[in-house]
């Protein structure tokens, strides 16, 4: 090495040493920091905390289990065991001798088994080669055959030896067991008593802190061996994430922190340690959505693979929670995941991913209500949505509007519908937040008048069936309206739209109808709705003309409403300029001017009316002449839940940048995104304002989020079957025709019960109908309803459904009861049979006639106790069902007043048939089947060539 004194240096080496030392120390520190930064994870803290929680819960469980153990008995058993052990000790010599013998025999047995095995192997080989050899030549190789037979015998001999030794061994074992039985028996008893407590104690020991397991094995750099803190994941075999050009099974790591999600006992603990609600429907191993096959994110969305709170895209549900999370977890909106977690309460939006196009999903109450709202509000009419095709137009037909309304009333109505009828579903098209300037108001008035002119000019004529109807009594009418069932679909009083719900506002609101239309029209309608509008869903209540007159008189007293007055005036020149704007959008200005020059002022008004109706899409909800083939004007919403955030225009609104906030703001005020913008009149947003309140907005947002591009493979979906199809179609039908407003089916519906004093005065429960009523009878009943419960005021109307619909209803009932497609025998009973006589005895003994109608309504019974006419039994009810009903009415119709006469079935309290309940029930059934003469629906007759 050169002498450094003579060479010289560029740097002071001693200084460089210091620099080197300093930077090396920094390097070491930064490497340690790097290791720590990689090691320290939030989820590990949750897992450490959970160990403590689990210990707590286990301790509580242990206390409970210990309390269940009878300490005295346990003491006794333990004492007995010690004595037994002592006794055993005395016999030690004997046991030792036996054990020696046993070991001996075991050895001999092993040897014998070995010889046996060898012999078998050899025999098998020789037999096989013999079989192959003699294949072509069956006569030869006889020597071999003899040899093989000998080997077989030898093998059998050896087998016998094995059996002998085995028997000897088992004998010895038996003797030993016998000797030890005292102890072992007591051991078993003690184990049986303490199984739960020892299991929990063992668990507590596992959970107790242990240096090696909890600290050493979880230490940084060493934690690859056998850490107790590890990422938990669920890979779902049938549920996929749709990435570009490929599908990847979902990998849900939520359970890394949500450690008790599928375990009972943690309901009271805060997140992330809470148990999932409704474990028997979600997440539990016996539920239809077990955790291992469903995972978490298919329902809740969010980033599945993340194990950090922020990146998993947890969504706060309230503002307060947002601030709380920002402080505690440094939470911020996640921009790097397209589908953030659904906020609490909206998780049911994901049901539609697998329950494809189902209008009613059992247990999904939020979603079902959302869909109910979506349909009643008629969103599907303007916004095409898969699953809602082919439904009726939500609003009444305007084809014959001349006969019903006056232009003045219509103008007031469409200016602001909710001022006339507060619960109406008709939205407000004008006077919204983006059309409130004076100029806009003038335009609005011109448009309103033009629309009205168009509707009336294009209206058909309508002749009332009874040109001069009788006058009725409004007090009688009120009684009828409030009892016969009108209120099941119509609201007449002061209820709010959400309070009444989409089912009881299924029909047009009756508020203020007196100031809306004429007596003649109401009479014509109430008497026969189909006369005015063939397609109406309103059924025929089979009112007499007298009753119809009373109802009409009552309805005409419902006046009121506070219509909004026009807030601007305009002249012809102005409305011409409005029309010019519309025409210029489709033809060049010169041509537009020419067109207008060629029209009279009335023609121009009508032209403007047509343009206005076309722009705002009135025809989507109402039948209007001239718009029969027009296309809906709204955005298609079929995949709205999958829509990317970047496709939504937040305009100048300062709201959180999420899809849900966008939807909610839009639903609160559909024109809000026009705020602050400079727009030509025809460029403005045009969705009308429905006046939704916060609950309705949240429900509709849930519905929107549920409309997804379906990506799950068939293996993940509900298995299809005829029964499922029948259920699906039936559930849709009973909702779209509003059967469930009056009747409860499958734990849903029956809103009518809120209008009567007692549920028994409401229309009956229909869930058991499939097993209960004969389908043919039911079909005839649908075609022409009769009175089954004569004490009821409310009556089943006559619905005009096609046979296809009725079949869907019948199949639906059959699917609920699982009797669809079953062959039912027709049971005919001879009235002279022995069981019938006893049945009659029992019938009197049990005093069935006290409540059941039998031609006469029983006297001295409050109406709540009355029961259907038993004369109809043989024609109406299914014979097997009667037995099930008699045996246990509560299981079929919970809450029924029918007594349970055989609570300890098949033991009976009554003496007949030697107290054999089975035969007693059967005999009563047989007796009932001999009745006749009850009311019966008319068998519908179909002539050849009739339309179904």
């Amino acid at each position, binding site marked *: *090495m*050169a*002498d*450094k*004194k003579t060479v*010289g*240096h*560029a*740097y*002071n*080496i*001693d*200084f460089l*040493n*210091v620099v*080197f*030392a300093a930077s*090396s*120390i920094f*390097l*070491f520190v930064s*490497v*340690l920091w*790097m*290791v720590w930064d*990689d090691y320290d994870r939030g989820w590990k803290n949750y897992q450490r905390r959970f160990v403590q929680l689990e210990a707590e819960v286990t301790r509580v469980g242990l206390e409970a289990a210990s309390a269940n153990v009878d300490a005295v008995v346990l003491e006794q058993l333990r004492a007995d065991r010690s004595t037994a052990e002592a006794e055993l000790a005395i016999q030690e010599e004997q046991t030792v001798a036996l054990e020696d013998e046993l070991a001996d025999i075991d050895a001999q047995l092993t040897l014998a088994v070995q010889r046996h*095995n060898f012999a078998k*192997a050899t025999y098998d080989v020789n037999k096989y080669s013999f079989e192959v050899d003699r294949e072509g030549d069956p006569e030869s190789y006889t020597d071999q055959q003899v040899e093989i037979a000998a080997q077989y015998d030898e093998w059998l001999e050896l087998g016998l030896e094995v059996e002998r030794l085995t028997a000897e061994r088992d004998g010895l074992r038996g003797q030993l067991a016998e000797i030890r039985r005292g102890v072992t028996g007591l051991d078993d008893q003690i184990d049986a008593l303490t199984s739960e407590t020892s299991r929990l104690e063992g668990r507590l020991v596992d959970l107790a802190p242990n240096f090696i397991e909890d600290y050493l094995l979880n230490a*940084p*750099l060493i934690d*690859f061996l056998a850490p107790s803190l*590890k*990422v938990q*994941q669920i*890979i779902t075999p049938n549920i996929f994430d749709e990435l570009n050009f490929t599908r990847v099974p979902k*990998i849900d*790591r939520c359970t890394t922190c949500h450690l008790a999600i599928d*375990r*009972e006992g943690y309901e009271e603990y805060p997140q992330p340690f809470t148990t999932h609600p409704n474990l028997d429907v979600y997440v*539990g*191993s*016996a539920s239809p959505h077990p955790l*291992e096959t469903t995972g978490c994110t298919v329902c809740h969305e969010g980033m599945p693979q993340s194990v950090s709170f922020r990146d998993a895209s947890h969504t706060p549900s309230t503002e307060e929670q947002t601030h709380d999370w920002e402080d505690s977890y440094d939470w911020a909106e996640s921009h790097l995941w397209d589908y953030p977690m659904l906020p609490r309460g909206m998780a049911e939006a994901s049901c539609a991913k697998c329950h494809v196009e189902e209008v009613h999903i059992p247990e999904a109450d939020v979603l079902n209500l959302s869909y109910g709202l979506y349909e009643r509000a008629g969103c599907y009419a303007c916004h095409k949505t898969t699953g809602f095709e082919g439904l009726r137009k939500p609003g009444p037909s305007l084809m014959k509007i001349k006969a019903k309304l006056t232009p003045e009333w219509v103008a007031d109505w469409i200016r602001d519908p909710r001022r006339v009828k507060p619960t109406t579903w008709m939205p407000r098209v004008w006077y919204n937040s983006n059309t409130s300037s004076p100029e806009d108001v003038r335009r609005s008035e011109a448009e309103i008048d033009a629309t009205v002119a168009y509707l009336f000019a294009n209206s058909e004529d309508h002749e009332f069936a009874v040109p001069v109807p009788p006058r009725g009594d409004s007090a009688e009418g009120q009684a009828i309206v409030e009892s016969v069932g009108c209120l099941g679909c119509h609201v007449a009083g002061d209820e709010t739209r959400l309070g009444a719900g989409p089912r009881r506002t299924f029909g047009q609101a009756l508020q203020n109808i007196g100031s809306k239309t004429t007596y003649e029209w109401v009479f014509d309608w109430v008497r026969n709705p189909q006369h005015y509008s063939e397609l109406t869903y309103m059924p025929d209540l089979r009112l007499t003309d007298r009753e119809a007159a009373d109802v009409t008189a009552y309805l005409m007293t419902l006046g009121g409403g506070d219509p909004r007055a026009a807030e601007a005036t305009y002249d012809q020149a102005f409305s011409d300029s409005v029309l010019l704007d519309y025409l210029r959008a489709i033809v060049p200005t010169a041509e537009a001017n020419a067109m207008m020059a060629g029209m009279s002022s009335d023609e121009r008004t009508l032209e403007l009316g047509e343009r206005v109706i076309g722009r705002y899409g009135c025809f989507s909800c109402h039948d209007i002449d001239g718009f029969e083939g027009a296309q809906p004007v709204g955005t298609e919403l079929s995949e709205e839940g999958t829509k990317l955030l970047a496709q939504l225009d937040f305009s100048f609104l300062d709201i959180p940048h999420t899809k849900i906030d966008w939807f909610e703001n839009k639903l609160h005020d559909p024109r809000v995104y026009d705020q602050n913008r400079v727009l030509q009149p025809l460029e403005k947003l045009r969705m009308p304002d429905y006046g939704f309140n916060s609950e309705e907005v949240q429900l509709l947002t849930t519905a929107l989020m549920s409309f997804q591009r379906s990506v799950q493979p068939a293996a993940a979906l509900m298995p299809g079957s005829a029964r499922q199809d029948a259920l699906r179609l039936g559930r849709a039908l009973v909702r779209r025709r509003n059967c469930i407003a009056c009747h409860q089916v499958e734990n849903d519906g029956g809103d009518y019960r809120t209008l009567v004093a007692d549920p028994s005065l409401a229309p009956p429960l229909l869930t058991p109908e499939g097993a209960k009523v004969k389908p043919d009878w039911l079909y005839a009943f649908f075609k022409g309803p009769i009175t089954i419960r004569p004490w009821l005021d409310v009556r089943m109307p006559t619905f005009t459904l096609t046979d296809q619909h009725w079949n869907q209803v019948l199949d639906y009932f059959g699917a609920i009861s699982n009797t669809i497609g079953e062959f039912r025998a027709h049971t005919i009973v001879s009235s002279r049979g022995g069981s019938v006589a006893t049945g009659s005895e029992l019938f009197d003994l049990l005093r069935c006639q006290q409540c059941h109608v039998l031609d006469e309504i029983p006297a001295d019974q409050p109406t709540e106790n009355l029961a259907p006419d038993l004369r109809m039994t043989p024609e109406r009810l299914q014979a097997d069902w009667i037995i099930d009903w008699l045996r246990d009415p509560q299981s079929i119709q919970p809450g029924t007043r029918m007594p349970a006469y055989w609570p300890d079935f098949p033991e009976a309290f009554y003496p007949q048939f030697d107290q054999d309940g089975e035969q007693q029930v059967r005999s009563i059934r047989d007796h009932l089947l001999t009745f006749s003469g009850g009311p019966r629906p008319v068998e519908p007759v179909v002539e050849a060539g009739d339309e179904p």
Partner: protein
Amino acid sequence: MTDDPTTPAAGTPVSKDAPVKPVTPAVPPNLGGKTTSAAVAPRRPAAAKKVADDTSPLLSRRHWLGLAWGSFTAASAAALAATGRFMFPNVLNEPPQQFKIGFPDEYVPGVDERWKVRYGVWIVRTPSDIVQEASGFYALISVCTHLGCTPNWLSAEVKFKCPCHGSGFRPTGVNFEGPAPRPLERARIVLAEDGQILVDKARKFQFELGQWADPESFLRS
């Protein structure tokens, strides 16, 4: 660094114009870092005392270098350890080691192959186990103990037979044929909280080590 490279850096001796410093005989000049032989000068004590031309601030040159190389080595060792740790992923997209297989009454006595493909275990229900002498379940891991192939269950011949080299195992898992040196391994099998059977392949039990007596290797029922 300096503007003028001809200026000698600190640490080098001054130019010839400077007065010559007297040099004590006991301290020979440090020639380019070479030390003199031990016979010439006694060994200097280490630690705080600096060499004459040592211009290091605070500590001695030896200290600084020691510190520097020490922490550099430590950092390298830590980085190497971190690299080694990196080779063991925290989580793998593999089937889970622990899984539930249903309720006990879903199984009849005998060998059940329903989880063989998915999880690699046979579930065997026996009226009397050879070691525990009780009725219940055990889970055999479907890996042949010879060289790791997957044996087949031949129900007609009541044995597991490995197609690779012919190893044969009884339904208990005990090897009796072919080159397999030891019986099939059993996996931990316990009852989960909700009543289902839980199999855990992370813990294995080998017969030849006497581990089949362990209560978690056999589920009594």
